[in-house]
């Protein structure tokens, strides 16, 4: 199962190295990791996409929380949230295909951000499957190169996740596998 975890971390050198080292040394499989500044200059936000069962996710979350510079970890998976990927992609327009490409760019609500005699660069954001679909559609024209950001996500709520109470689980329910 796929989970989106969002972590607020102290904006200090070495925090990313610490976290990625922990994930690697415990052999957690991370599909995507994005880091960036937040509204609070002292904090950065990391968004993780983790593949694994409930047990793996539970361990990833707890091991993240154990790192002293990690302030909050929130699992978005069971909540209402918006997630986006961003992609920049260079497509060949050789053979007079520029207008065809342009039409498709409009259909996907993407944007041409650079034009050359034989190529265009397109910016597109959206959910993963939209980006994947756009790549598929562009493939016949010739993809020169592309870059994708990691996933970013936010909860649909008026509150800041910094203000959310830490997930307090004084009495965690036993996981379903456990038979009493």
């Amino acid at each position, binding site marked *: 199962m796929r989970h989106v975890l969002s972590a607020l*971390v*102290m904006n200090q*050198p*070495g925090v990313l*190295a*610490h976290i990625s*080292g*922990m994930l690697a*040394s415990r052999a957690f499989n991370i599909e995507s990791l994005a880091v960036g500044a937040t509204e609070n200059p002292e904090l950065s936000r990391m968004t993780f996409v983790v593949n694994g069962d409930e*047990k793996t996710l*539970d*361990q990833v979350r*707890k*091991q993240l*929380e*154990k*790192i*002293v*510079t*990690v*302030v*909050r970890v929130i699992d978005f998976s069971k909540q209402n949230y918006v997630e986006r990927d961003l992609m920049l992609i260079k497509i060949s327009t050789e053979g007079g295909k520029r207008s065809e490409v342009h039409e498709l760019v409009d259909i996907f609500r993407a944007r041409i951000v650079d034009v050359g005699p034989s190529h265009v660069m397109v910016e597109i954001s959206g959910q993963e499957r939209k980006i994947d679909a756009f790549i598929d559609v562009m493939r016949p024209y010739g993809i020169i190169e592309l870059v994708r950001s990691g996933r970013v996500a936010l909860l649909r709520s008026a509150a800041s996740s910094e203000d959310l109470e*830490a997930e*307090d*689980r*004084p*009495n*965690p329910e*036993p*996981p379903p*596998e*456990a038979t*009493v």
Partner: protein
Amino acid sequence: MAAEKARTQSKSKTLQLPVVNGADILVEALIRQGVDTIFAYPGGASMPMHQALTHQADRLRTILPRHEQGGIFAAEGYARTTGKVGVCMATSGPGATNLVTGLADAKMDSCPVVAITGQVAKKFIGTDAFQETPIVEVCRAITKHHYLITRFEDIPRVVKEAFYVARSGRPGPVLIDFPKDLQTEKASEHPDYDPPMNLPGYRPEPRPVNPAQVRQVLAAVKRSKKPILYIGGGAINSEAAAELYKFAKRTNIPVTTTLMGIGAFPARDPQSLHMLGMHGTVYANFAINSADLLLAFGVRFDDRVTGKVSEFATHGKIVHIDNDPSEIHKNKLAHIPIIADLNEALAALNDAITDDDLPELDEWWSEINEWRDKHPLRYSDPGHDLILPQYAIEELHRQTADRDPFVAVGVGQHQMWAAQYYKFDRPRRWMSSSGLGAMGFGLPAAMGAQAANPGKLVIDIDGDGSFQMNIQELATLTCEKLPVKVFLLNNQHLGMVMQWEDRFHKSNRAHTYLGPIDHPEATGKGTAAILDETYPNFVKIAEGFGIQARQVRSRKEFPKALAEMLAAPGPYVLDILCPYQEHVLPMIPGGHTVKDIILE
């Protein structure tokens, strides 16, 4: 002139040295954290801190180990026997990397340590300068937390946070890397030694024990027919021995401990089933395998305890109490998981328990007692006046139990025999590199314990392999007047690896004999049970370090030789020649289950 000088000195004392540099501030901050002993080995990038230490010699004892690894293991010995934070210091580069094994050890065994390293000046960081290593980068995964001080004004805050993080919650090692230019920078204003901490992501305060969970545990206890208390190092770290004793006595539930839990419950109490796991007692392993309720308190279901984890304690319901949420469900799913300070949780259980909650355990005890009668810890007497290591440790216990000694061990066969045959009745008396299994731990850990507990009997039960890994610390014993007694079980082999060779590799000796390579023993073709000539000559080595020593190879002479060591006022090395043919038993081979237990 002299009077004026004296006046300035006394003035400067009351004002806490108006002209101070970063190194002075760090040392003052250490003293304000209650540090009374530091194990510190100097070098270019830590010299200013050593200069500062000399100014505070009356408030803070600096002990010079002979290797930085000895220094950090000594800090662990200090911490493990006192519960206070152990402190060590090293220079940059090789000094810092020599701390790595100790940091990993302290992390694995949840031992509170603050390690301070000198670092090259800030402007040289990242230039591959002389003796520069990015020690924080190296140590991220093996420390609980780490700091590279980059601003002068951060020094007191970093020290305060480091001690707080090291000792609170699940304790662990914290590294402070301190560039030399900040050590020598002069303070322009009076430092604030109690600044606010900046740890928004660190919340170690114990969570309140939920009364509903306490009832749940007691209900499980009441329903159980075969409960067992499985106790780990968490019981030592949370100082829970007294509440544990109360709970165990009230419920009459049998108690088994992990290697780290030794001493949390009196080993000589009939309710103790002693250690469980790979080299645990048969009765403890049978009991945990048959139990219908595991009270797993302050443990982490380590593979040396569980063997094949999917087959471990399959009949039982598991109550898991630990203060580290990441341990809950990590290796084994718990039916009643409780994140709490163990001492508080046990106190809550003791407060809530009523006579009505007590289980009926007569049948369970008669089953356990049958196992205990049939399979006690045992070894056979080989005759020939040989000193068996198991016997030697039993004799050591006989002669020292009433002196309530502190005992450190190295890693290997002697460590397991010490865990089996030395009966610890109190917490914080036993020091073992348990999770990491770092050879060379015993001597320096004993040295740190002796520094922390002056006037007490401190013994290093060691093997000849482990002993040689930090043998240089004999110099520290002499020079710092630390009267540690080295109880050296010398079998001329790396016994634990040799045992596995015997069991799993047809006794093919693969670099496990510690004497000359042209000796027949090096290829396993020796014949003697013990050797006429041993290598190296530990008595001469000890004497070279200024330490009294003797070799003993006769069982008849052994009790007297031991008594002689124990009566010696200073440090002593007793080189006890043991036959190498002995194996640590019982043994559950790694990844196997209690059904595969090897008894002989």
